[in-house]
């Protein structure tokens, strides 16, 4: 398993390299925006990946709440997975917001607009930062349950946030991949390479963090056991 992890790391780093090369040197310059549009090759893949990890987090949290009394070992693993995905979510959503702002400044002329997509993405960021805060502040025995409950609430909240803010206002362009202003065929390779690269890199990060949390859990269990035996 350990070797597989390092292979995945090397694989995703290679993909990141190819993606960078394709996006910067191969892909053509966009007609209206010029070279600055190349942020697209990082912004969109990062944001798509950033929307995957919260779902993993919510599913792991629900499963944790279900199994926490009956299968302690499995529950521990699920909890570790929830921590890892939450942290990677914060990282990816943060990167997505940052690249978006860097792109918005030259193209829209402003760093930030209170538009539907931007605002709901910011809410996702805030929700998961609060999740990590809760994990940090809660007592050891309770923090897993409290965080799992919060993750369920966040999962319920995200669609409501999205709907309510869409009623409010919208400026962000409609999805370019499925919508009308479709992507030129010469731009697809760079986009797909980066998509794969950022997804696998995220998976590698989750895996590494998961392994660390699992070891911490086992260490904590052993300390508790030793304290009982002495």
């Amino acid at each position, binding site marked *: 398993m350990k070797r597989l992890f390092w292979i995945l790391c090397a694989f995703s780093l290679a993909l990141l390299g190819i993606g960078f090369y394709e996006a910067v040197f191969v892909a053509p310059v966009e007609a209206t925006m010029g070279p600055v549009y190349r942020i697209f090759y990082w912004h969109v893949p990062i944001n798509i990946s950033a929307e995957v990890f919260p779902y993993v987090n919510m599913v792991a949290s629900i499963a944790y709440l279900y199994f926490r009394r009956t299968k302690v070992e499995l529950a521990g693993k699920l909890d570790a997975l929830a921590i890892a995905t939450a942290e990677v979510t914060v990282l990816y959503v943060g990167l997505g917001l940052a690249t978006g702002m860097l792109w918005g400044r030259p193209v829209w002329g402003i760093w930030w607009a209170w538009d539907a997509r931007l605002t709901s993405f910011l809410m996702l960021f*805030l929700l998961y930062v609060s999740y990590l805060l809760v994990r940090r*502040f*809660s007592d050891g025995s309770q923090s897993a349950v409290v965080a799992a409950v*919060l993750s369920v609430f966040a999962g319920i909240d995200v669609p409501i946030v999205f709907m309510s803010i869409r009623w409010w206002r919208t400026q962000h362009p409609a999805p370019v991949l499925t919508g009308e202003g479709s992507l030129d065929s010469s731009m697809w390779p760079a986009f797909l390479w980066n998509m794969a690269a950022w997804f696998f890199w995220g998976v590698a990060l989750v895996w590494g963090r998961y392994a660390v949390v699992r070891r911490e859990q086992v260490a904590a269990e052993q300390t508790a056991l030793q304290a009982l035996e002495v």
Partner: protein
Amino acid sequence: MTYLRTVWLHLRKDLRLEWRSRDAIAGMLFFTLLVTVVFAMAFDPTGFPTLARQMSGGLLWVGLLFAATTALNTSWERERRNQVLDAHRMSASPASALFLGKALANLIFVSVIELALAPVFTVFYNLHPLGEVRWLLLILPLGTWAIVVNGTFFAALGLSSRNRELMLPAVLFPISIPALLGVVQATTGVITGDFEPQLWIRMLLGFDVIFTTACILLFPTVLHAE
């Protein structure tokens, strides 16, 4: 029926405790009054009546939200004294009845604040609402319940945490953003008369129903978290 009776008993207990101390209501009342005064210093509401109309909905709810968080933290503090919470954990009565009783009590407390604050707001900000004021009879309870139901739940969630005073707002504010957006928009719609508040009222209603259900279903898990 026994469930409703248990809810009523919890509610009556909380009301009686509040009646004897009047901690929550007095604290919230003074706090929101101060917030109103400070906001009036930030801009001149009597000189710019249109601006005052556009802003006062948001100001009212920001003040109420801050005030409610102070009261919500203390509302569970009562249960910690003399290990009452452990007694609740061992009790045979449904845990969600305890939650509902407390949430309803908090709803009553915050509503009292709103009733006291409405004339103050109208006077200080020189408000002449241009929309249908009767909608507020629906908006105020719905918005208050949205804040209070989640707030009571998250205050219980943070009972064992090290930094309780910070944790409640850190969790409650991001989750309640859609409700806040809805209630501020609806209130602004009524005060300015620029748009109809019905869409936002429906959204608030949906928010309330969904989160009340989630809170009731998950409260036993939170109470027996250890």
